[in-house]
């Protein structure tokens, strides 16, 4: 390991009722990229928040360059050269790029008037962006940038504060595949420039590609460390969950009745020129792959009726279903588990019970009045079947972990016996153990005869779960691959809009 830049030793942090970190240690060398992984709740964020000055440790020491460092506030951390790129970006989209980078440190002129020296700010901002390989004017309104570029602006901001250590918390969770590639290149560039990076991600594939070392946390303790040569999927998962995960992906017997659910000539408002047609068999999982922005979610939303399609036909069991609103879809037992569960999937301030019974509250009424007991029984049964971890069905959904929230969304639809279930990024922000459970549930449903359409940006997931894979590019369906034809290369080829690898129909 290069000479240590950061040495964290014996950090302990107790939250009311929870020991979040228990004697955790971590070292980062100068110009080293350390991957930090662990399930949700393992203590990664707590540890990073301590380094970033957001919270303070109860015990333990932090040394930078061999000297004890007291990090009491966020500004302490910045002054010590620690930059923190949060998962949810802290940018102001009403300001321009330079204004974001120099927020609070704007170059000024005009003496007591303290006017912002815009030209200087723009040129200096552009210098930092160039270091990241980004050639955009400093005067660009931030709101016009893609999420990936906004993230680069945050990294540029850290660099402008002379950061020597940059913490990246789930930097790729909202990026497309090609943007992820770019970010990984940037990470390597920064390392070459001598900047150290702590890289947190649930996407284990990224670890092998950028990390010099992977540190694993489990239940608030150090669970182990993997050197450059030891980084592989199996080893990481074993350390994260403390055992081997078997049946990580489960394949089923495939379609029992093909063309059970058919979509013909569907046109969405986002891509009005493209017609999308495909079908899903009874008991089949059709993966829908593509880059972010390829129009996959729009297809899902059109089928589910929340954003009614411009044209097209949806057929279920050979009969045409007219869908103009989510009500229509629900009546036909076509359900959507949306991408953003906290915005669209759940009313997080309401209870587990209220969320589960929401789509068809009428069935829990007597004489038009909602009967709490009927609701509680139904919600309780669903929670038990899906093994939702919650103190009770009266707990507010926002107090549940991501995986359990996702199960509540599922419970909501399973209570209404689905025929078609559309999953949009079903495991986003969910930890490893819960992921495996969601896959198993998906497979169980397929085995029970549900037709499943799964949108995912994670190729691992698409390959591991799907019986067939449909691929979209800029609103159009560029190909459907049979299970034996599926490979990362074949999917990527179609996803970037090139002709299929092998001659296909």
């Amino acid at each position, binding site marked *: 390991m290069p000479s240590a830049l950061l040495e964290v030793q014996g950090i302990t942090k107790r939250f009311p009722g929870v020991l979040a970190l228990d004697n955790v240690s971590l070292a980062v060398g100068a110009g080293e990229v350390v991957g930090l992984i662990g*399930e949700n709740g393992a203590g990664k964020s707590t540890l990073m928040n301590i380094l970033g000055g957001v919270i303070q440790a109860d015990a333990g020491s932090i040394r930078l360059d061999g000297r004890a460092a007291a990090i009491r506030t966020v500004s302490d951390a910045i002054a010590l050269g620690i930059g923190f790129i949060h998962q949810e970006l802290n940018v102001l989209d009403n300001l321009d790029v330079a204004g974001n980078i120099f927020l609070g440190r704007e170059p000024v002129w005009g003496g007591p008037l303290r006017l912002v020296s815009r030209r200087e700010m723009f040129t200096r901002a552009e210098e930092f962006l160039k270091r990241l390989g980004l050639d955009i004017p400093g005067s660009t309104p931030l709101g016009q940038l893609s999420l990936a570029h906004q993230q680069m602006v945050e990294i540029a901001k850290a660099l402008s504060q002379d950061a020597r250590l940059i913490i990246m918390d789930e930097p790729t969770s909202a990026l497309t595949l090609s943007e992820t590639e770019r970010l990984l290149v940037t990470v390597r560039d920064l390392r070459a420039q001598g900047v150290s990076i702590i890289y947190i991600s649930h996407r284990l594939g990224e670890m092998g590609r950028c990390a010099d070392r992977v540190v694993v946390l489990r239940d608030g303790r150090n669970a182990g460390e993997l050197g450059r040569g030891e980084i592989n999927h199996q080893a990481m998962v074993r350390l994260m969950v403390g055992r081997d995960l078997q049946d990580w992906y489960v394949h089923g017997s495939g379609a029992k009745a093909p063309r059970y659910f058919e979509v013909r000539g569907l046109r969405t408002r986002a891509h009005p020129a493209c017609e999308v047609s495909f079908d899903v068999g009874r008991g089949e999982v059709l993966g829908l792959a593509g880059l972010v922005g390829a129009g996959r979610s729009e297809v899902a939303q059109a089928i589910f009726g929340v954003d009614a399609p411009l044209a097209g036909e949806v057929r279920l069991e050979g009969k045409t279903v007219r869908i103009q609103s989510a*009500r229509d879809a629900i009546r036909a037992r076509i359900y959507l588990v949306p991408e953003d569960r906290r915005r*669209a999937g759940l009313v997080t301030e309401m209870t587990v019970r209220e969320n589960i019974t929401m789509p068809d509250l009428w069935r829990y009424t007597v004489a*038009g009045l909602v009967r709490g007991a009927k609701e509680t029984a139904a919600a309780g049964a669903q*929670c038990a079947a899906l093994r939702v971890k919650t103190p009770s069905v009266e707990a507010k959904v926002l107090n549940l*972990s991501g995986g359990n929230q996702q199960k509540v969304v599922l419970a909501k639809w399973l209570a209404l016996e689905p025929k078609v279930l559309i999953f949009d990024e079903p495991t986003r922000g969910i930890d490893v153990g819960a992921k495996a459970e969601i896959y198993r549930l998906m497979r169980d449903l397929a085995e029970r005869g549900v037709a499943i359409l799964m949108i995912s940006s994670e190729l691992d997931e698409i390959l591991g779960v799907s019986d067939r894979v449909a691929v979209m590019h800029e609103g159009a369906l560029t190909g459907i691959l049979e299970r034996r034809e599926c490979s990362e290369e074949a999917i990527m080829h179609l996803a970037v809009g090139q002709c299929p690898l092998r001659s296909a129909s």
Partner: protein
Amino acid sequence: MKKEVGIFVLLLALCAVVSIMDPRFVSAANLQNQARLIGMYGVFSIGMGVVIVTAGIDLSVGSIFALQGVLLSMMLREWHWPWPLAVAAVIGGTMALGTLHGALVTVARLQPFIVTLCGLLFYRGAARFIASDEAKGFGAEGFGMLRELATGSIAGVPMPFVALVAIAVLMWVVLHRSVYGRYLFAVGRNEDAARYSGINSRLIIASAYVVAAALAGISGILIAFYTNSISPSGHGTFYELYGIAAAVLGGCSLRGGEGSVIGIVIGTALLQVLRNLVNLLGIPSSLEFAVMGAVILAGVMVDQVLMQRRQSRLATKGPREPAGAPKRPGEC
């Protein structure tokens, strides 16, 4: 429920203080008058609460009172309509305005504040124009049945209070026990998630304005007969703010998705007792608004502090499971 208990205790305390400082507070005449005022204000405040639950607001209530008061007087005295027809026309009219507000909010996607602010200005102007800016009224005599319904009393209980009790019970069931009520709260909390659950969120939100308008229509008739003289430029001014204040005191959040009928009724009562207190204790009536403003601010601040306290207490007790904390409570 805790919120309601809190302001109910405050209401009782306030009543106790006022009655000790001035025994006239508990005289039959005063109590009757208070009940009458609480009734009139409570009915439209509940409507306001329904709109606030959907994260909306209705600023037009006071102007609607002026417009409908003027029209009611003209229908009865100048056009000699039979009173049931006039009442139906007035309430139907306010509901039509509510439908318009709802459509502008949900179909045209305008902000409720702006829609109803324009309503506040427009209806006031319309009332003054229609009445040629002259006061209208119902005279000292006549319209016996309607006047009795609006201003009379049953066994000493003033009719407006009776109306409030009936409407509060009905609205409690609607808001807290019906499917529609649950959807109102869901839409107010998170319209997207409600839509993704198959709820027709626009219809639900629009309907809240219609319900509010209907209740305002009923209140407006009671208020018109109570004042018995409707000066189109001054009648009903600030009433929408009383409604908002009552709803907020009663636990409604302007962010939507929160509130209860019982809370709103207690909030209304609290406001009226405050005004009564200013009156009885000989505080200059010019200070009335200042006292109300101070009390509402204090009330909301205390509530905020209590809520934070409760949250931190909950956190220390544990069971709020932080995602994947080592110690997990049992599965349900």
